[in-house]
């Protein structure tokens, strides 16, 4: 699937499938194409080439049918802050053709699940950011979608609220057999997905479970901080013939038995290394290995 805004190619030949009952993550920097992909799947944009299907229905040719099957939680809250929690859900139900006692029952269930039953009649603008996010989630799940799309759902939440949100997402998945597609630029979120696609500059650069992705990097990652990273990297490369990368003023080396390599480095380049650390590869290392740049840094 591809998409371009004018001359700017936002998506460039992307393809993947989310399995039933799976939490599938799209990890990548802002501006990497995640949100464009999200908007196509949410039926707000049409792909320029290729197609996307939800429950066997094409998003471009039959958006109306797709909309029944998806729940969408936007990055920016989609709540009417002048209305109460209940009113927001009540309107949402009506938009999906639910009404009367069936709707009331479902609203009550969903409010119970996200722990907001007592705040049912509170005006949304009096709620905290974390509570609003939970209302948004309840709203997206109200009509029992087969697939829920979450765009950076934990942005702006404190760690406690983020954990809460994840427990609600996981509970909804196990109770309703829901498939979840989540976009994020946060490693903590990415780690919780069943499978993960790393998206960079409109392409998928890696797709696997978070564990398998980490293992694919292999060995340990040694990160050295220095005042002259380029020179040190060249010297390490020459002396030890290791693959060395310079990223954000740090020198990174991947190597088995990393702890044994640290004293060798110190002995070889006395006084040139300010600080050094050894660790198992993280998803960030996976990202760096596949893209050659940091998740947070400006793209070259």
């Amino acid at each position, binding site marked *: 699937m591809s998409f371009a*805004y004018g001359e700017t190619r936002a998506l460039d030949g992307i393809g993947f499938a989310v399995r039933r009952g799976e939490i599938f993550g799209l990890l990548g920097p802002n501006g990497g194409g995640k949100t464009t992909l999200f*908007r196509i799947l*949410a*039926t*707000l*944009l*049409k792909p320029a080439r290729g197609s996307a299907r939800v429950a066997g229905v094409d998003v471009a040719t039959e958006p*109306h*049918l797709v*909309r*029944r099957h*998806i729940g*969408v939680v*936007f990055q*920016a*809250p*989609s*709540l*009417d802050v*002048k*209305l109460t929690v209940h*009113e*927001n859900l*009540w*309107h*949402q139900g*009506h*938009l*999906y*053709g639910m*009404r009367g006692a069936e709707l009331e029952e479902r609203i009550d269930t969903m409010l119970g699940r996200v722990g907001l039953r007592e705040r049912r009649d509170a*005006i949304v603008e009096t709620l905290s950011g974390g509570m609003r996010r939970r209302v948004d989630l309840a*709203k*997206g799940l109200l009509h029992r979608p087969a697939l829920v799309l979450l765009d950076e759902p934990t942005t702006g939440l404190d760690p406690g609220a983020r954990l809460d949100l994840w427990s609600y997402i996981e509970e909804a998945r196990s109770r309703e057999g829901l498939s979840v597609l989540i976009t994020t630029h946060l490693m903590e979120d990415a780690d919780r997905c069943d499978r993960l696609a790393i998206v960079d500059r409109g392409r998928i650069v890696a797709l696997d479970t978070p564990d398998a992705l980490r293992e694919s990097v292999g060995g340990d990652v040694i990160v050295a901080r220095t005042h002259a990273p380029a020179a040190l990297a060249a010297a390490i490369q020459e002396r030890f013939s290791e693959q060395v990368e310079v990223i954000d003023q740090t020198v990174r080396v991947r190597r088995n038995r990393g702890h044994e390599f640290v004293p060798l480095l110190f002995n070889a380049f006395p006084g040139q290394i300010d600080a050094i650390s050894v660790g198992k590869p993280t998803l960030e290392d996976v990202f760096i290995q596949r893209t050659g740049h940091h998740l947070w840094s400006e793209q070259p």
Partner: protein
Amino acid sequence: MNARLGNVWLPTATLWWREIVRFYRQPTRIVGAFGTPLLFWLLLGAGLGASFRPGGAASGPNYLEYFYPGTIVLVVLFTAIFSTISVIEDRREGFLQAVLVAPVPRSAVVLGKILGGTTLALGQAVLLLAAAPFLGLHLTLVSVAFLTIILFVIAFGLTTLGFLIAWRMDSTQGFHAIMNLALIPMWLLSGAFFPAAGGPLWLRLVMAANPLTYGLAALRRGFYPTGLPVGPEVPSLLLSVVLISGFAVLAFWIARIETNRPLTVGLA
């Protein structure tokens, strides 16, 4: 197709109701939409009353009376504008995002929003009709019914116009600019503030091309079922009703087409 049609009324009704609830939860909006025109009316009516001689006639309605239908239309205009301006922010971060991905036909989205604004504008305009007896205007049940219908058409047309402007706009500042440069002049040049007669030709042409001129004329004639008092010429009742209704229908038709085209503004 049937499933889609059966699907229109519940979302339309729910979106309409949301507009009403939002309005009464924000008392400042009521003050803004109702208070400002009322203040204009009383101050301008008092200040200009002495020098106002419509069309050079020696006798005729005083200014407070002349300006009265225009004040009602201004209340309608302000309410219509303020109820549609929220579309701009709502679409980017707010309620409207979720509506656009719901299995709801776009016509229900448009209709719910516009009927909401129309209801609010109409409610305030009808309240203002209570001032008529103080101006010596005698209203009957029939004339009130007629005025309400005309006000509905004007409110619907203006709310739709506001919606159309807001739909593709990406900032509320832009909307305010259009409001000052197009919507307020549209009202000023509708015969609300001064009659066309006596003005230069170009002004009379602009006023004749302004759809709101006919809304105002229909309203003005509705207040005087037995014939207008001596004063400025006003388009005939039939012409006025046809043209203002045509304007409302055309605006809605364009809004339906516009909303079915994919959005680009504010979605990137």
